[in-house]
């Protein structure tokens, strides 16, 4: 039991003046009697027996004392454990790791939903002056609601809680809560709601702020708790079979059974967005064991030549759509880019210098298309967008294409957002950005340029600098980047050096990775999609479950919050040049998160901290009953006083 208003217990101090009134200030009636000799002697006897004899425990005194005690207890608002004391602040820290999405059975609440229920009960039970804050403990601690008594704010914050990511910084979240509660009133505390489905130990450094850990998973140490039943895909990849053609690939996966009983499951591979099964395998998994799976499949390219995405799904039967029906559904599906996604279309626009064309052709994962600016401008509007790396030689369009591009020895005064200076002879390389991925393993000290048009402009960032200006620069945009070479490599000795090949391989690999990932920055399950798009561009996202989400780009980025869901999120960016298709692949592929058993230990100052099972508690306060008792006591006291008066 807790006292929601412990300061009200100070009302118990009223018993002191009450007793004093009885002892010192009693109203006495004068009565003349024959002699007080014997009374004096009797009182001397009493005083000799007990020095504090002047306190006379009458029924009225006892009733009034009891009324004060009960009244003070009622004002102190006794409530079941979990109540919030008056004026105190509760910091609700909720673990939002992916394992919190687990549920014990179909129709059951997920762990996160249970945690939210606990939070709602707490918010509903906030006493006058009581406040509550909500912190989501994900990869980073996020303050969803500052200390507030506003139910709507708290409700919105609780609604915003969603399982996401594979990392949980419980320590950081608790530390953040402790920091915010450092000057909070007495009775404030931290309530950490987690499933404890994580390896290791969490040190709860709360700097003296009380912390309570409640487990929301079924493995909370309760008798008769249902055992964990989860089988998940913990690793997945697709690699081309060397020597067997670009369409032949091996699918690699590792399936792990976290249950106490053996499991019999099917692993089925399909291509995202296409009918038909690529491969299926029946697996018998021992309890708490994993099996590796390798499946050889054909991954034919689609009509547009775009990279296919392989979807791996677990099911109890050979019908993939029936699913696993286990505790955690998020690890029953994984999506991986097919090896074909490594093949990068490169559109060579204009007459590229021979060394450049040669190095592009040397890469086996490059499909080189030679074209011209005029040809590109004459494409039909309804033609599928070109998705690849554009390499411009000489002529440069006014506007950069979506995605990545390279400009070699541009003509004119500008190359996109960069400005080009007058040609200078034999500039000397004096510096280069070693930390840039494009210059990885590249040294430019031995490169000698014959001519250079230095690159300038605020948008251009110099990668290689000569004494005449930037020789190589980069322009970064939300939807891609452009690398500009202000010189013709064939007029330098750079092509004869290995670093020339390395530089272009770095360029191609960078563009390949960006394209294989679908064009959307990588992230964990439930993480918001961060889609690069020009300011004001509208973005539509279709989730794996078919839900449509809309967002508008601000500051070159459209941030689209999504639920934790494994699969392909397809985004369409509405650009002036036409819609641009992007996609994001989201899979759990984390054995730590798939293991939804509670095993995390909590310690504080080197000592273990116990964790209790959490459950939404009905807010129950006892003060109305105590108040009723006080009224009853007053009635009895009044009756007693009248009775005493009648006797007198």
């Amino acid at each position: 039991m807790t006292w929601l208003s412990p300061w009200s217990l100070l009302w118990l101090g009223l018993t002191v003046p009450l007793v004093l009134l009885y002892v010192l200030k009693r109203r006495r009636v004068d009565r003349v009697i024959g002699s007080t000799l014997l009374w004096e002697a009797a009182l001397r006897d009493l005083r000799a027996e007990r020095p504090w004899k002047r306190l006379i425990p009458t029924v009225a005194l006892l009733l009034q004392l009891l009324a004060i005690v009960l009244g003070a207890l009622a004002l102190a608002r006794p409530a079941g454990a979990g109540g919030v004391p008056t004026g105190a602040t509760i910091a609700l820290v909720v673990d939002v790791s992916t394992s919190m999405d687990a549920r014990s059975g179909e129709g059951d609440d997920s762990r996160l939903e249970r945690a939210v229920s606990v939070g709602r009960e707490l918010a509903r039970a906030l006493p006058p002056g009581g406040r509550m804050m909500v912190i989501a403990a994900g990869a980073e601690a996020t303050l969803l609601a500052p200390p507030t008594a506003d139910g709507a704010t708290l409700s919105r914050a609780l609604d915003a809680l969603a399982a996401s990511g594979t990392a949980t910084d419980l320590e950081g979240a608790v530390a953040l809560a402790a920091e915010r509660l450092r000057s909070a009133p007495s009775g404030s505390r931290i309530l950490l709601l987690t499933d404890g489905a994580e390896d290791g130990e969490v040190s709860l450094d709360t700097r003296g702020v009380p912390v309570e850990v409640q487990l929301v998973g079924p493995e909370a140490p309760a008798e008769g708790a249902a055992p964990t039943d989860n089988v998940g895909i913990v690793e997945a990849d697709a690699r081309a079979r060397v020597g067997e053609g670009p369409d032949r690939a091996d699918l690699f996966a590792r399936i792990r059974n976290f249950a106490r009983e053996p499991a019999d499951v099917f692993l089925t591979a399909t291509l995202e967005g296409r009918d038909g099964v690529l491969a299926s395998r029946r697996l018998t998994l021992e309890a708490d064991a994993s099996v590796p799976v390798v499946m050889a499949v054909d991954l034919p390219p689609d009509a547009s030549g775009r990279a296919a995405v392989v979807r791996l799904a677990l099911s109890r039967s050979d019908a993939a759509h029936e699913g696993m029906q286990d505790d955690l559904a998020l690890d029953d599906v994984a999506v991986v880019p097919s090896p074909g996604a490594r093949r990068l279309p490169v559109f060579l626009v204009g007459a590229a210098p021979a060394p450049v064309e040669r190095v592009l052709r040397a890469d086996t994962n490059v499909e080189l298309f030679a074209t011209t600016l005029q040809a590109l401008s004459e494409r039909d509007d309804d033609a599928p967008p070109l998705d690849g790396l554009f390499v411009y030689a000489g002529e440069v369009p006014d506007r950069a294409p979506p995605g990545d591009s390279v400009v070699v020895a541009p003509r004119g005064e500008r190359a996109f957002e960069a400005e080009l200076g007058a040609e200078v002879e034999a500039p000397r390389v004096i510096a280069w950005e070693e930390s840039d991925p494009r210059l990885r393993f590249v040294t430019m000290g031995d490169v000698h340029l014959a001519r250079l048009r230095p690159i300038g402009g605020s948008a251009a960032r110099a990668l290689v600098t000569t004494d005449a200006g930037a020789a190589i620069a980069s322009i970064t945009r939300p939807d891609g980047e452009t690398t500009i070479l202000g010189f013709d490599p064939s007029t330098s000795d750079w092509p004869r050096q290995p670093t020339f090949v390395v530089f272009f391989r770095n360029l191609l690999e960078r563009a390949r990775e960006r394209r294989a990932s679908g064009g959307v920055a990588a992230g964990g399950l439930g993480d918001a999609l961060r889609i690069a798009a020009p300011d004001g561009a509208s973005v539509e996202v279709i989730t794996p479950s078919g839900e449509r989400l809309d967002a508008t780009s601000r500051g070159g980025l459209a941030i689209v919050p999504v639920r934790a869901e494994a699969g392909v999120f397809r985004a369409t960016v509405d650009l002036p040049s036409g819609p641009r298709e992007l996609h994001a692949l989201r899979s759990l592929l984390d054995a730590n998160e798939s293991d939804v058993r509670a095993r995390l230990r909590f310690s504080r100052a080197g000592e273990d901290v116990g964790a209790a099972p959490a459950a939404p508690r009905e807010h129950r306060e006892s003060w109305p009953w105590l108040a009723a008792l006080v009224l009853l006591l007053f009635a009895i006291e009044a009756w007693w006083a009248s009775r005493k008066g009648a006797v007198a």
Partner: protein
Amino acid sequence: MSSLLDPEFLRRLARVRLLVRRRFAGSAGGARRSTRKGQSVEMADHRPYSPGDDVRRIDWNAYARLEELILRLYVAEEDLVVYLLLDTSASMGFGDPPKLDVAKRLAAALAYVGLSGSERVGVVPFGAGIGTPMQPTRGRRRIGTVLKHLDALEARGETDLQRAVDELIARRTRPGLVLVLSDLLDPGGYQRSLDRLIAERHEPVIFHVLDREELDPTPGGDFNFVDSERGARVEVSLDQRTVDAYRRRVQLFLEGAEAYAKKRGLSYVRAGADVSIEDALLAYSRAA
């Protein structure tokens, strides 16, 4: 006839006689043995003959045996002086009925008994000192005078038995039966006073007049008890513990008075409260 005595009560008093444990020298022949040897038929002692003695009282049988003249001495039967030492202090005015009424009624009865027995009866009211006394008188017909004197007495003033006894002795009174009718609630105590009476060859008899509420107060209430004589104030909450303590103290007081009387060979009779006057008188007479 005063309201202090009614005919039925007088009829019952016929069976009562004043109890005297000692002998007193009287001034006239009476129904009481005197400390003086006299001419009654009851021999008291012998003494050697002295010239001038009445030769008729020589014990010749003794002379025959002892060859010495021995005079026979007889107990003289003389009247007894009875002093009704009546407490009229303010504390006697309390009670239901007031203790003074009980004491006056008891004194009237005792006076009647005494006068009926040819004793000399005097009334000595006292408070802080002796009030207006009534000199000892004889004869049943004098009862009216006694009652009239008793009727006139009122309760007032403090109690000072010592002073009253001193004044009584200072008046060179004849030793006699001193019937002390009092509640004995004297701040100075009563023992020394009664000892003084005994020393002066009086025989005190204690009639301890009490009130029921005084013996057994009813619990409940908070009071400032004001002493009727001294004006002293005592804060008392009549809870059960206090009442119990008071009862213990009263019991000690009563037992102390009774023990004192027994030790001195005095008669001790309680009156008032639950003891009627008749019962008190009968208890006194039974003590004989």
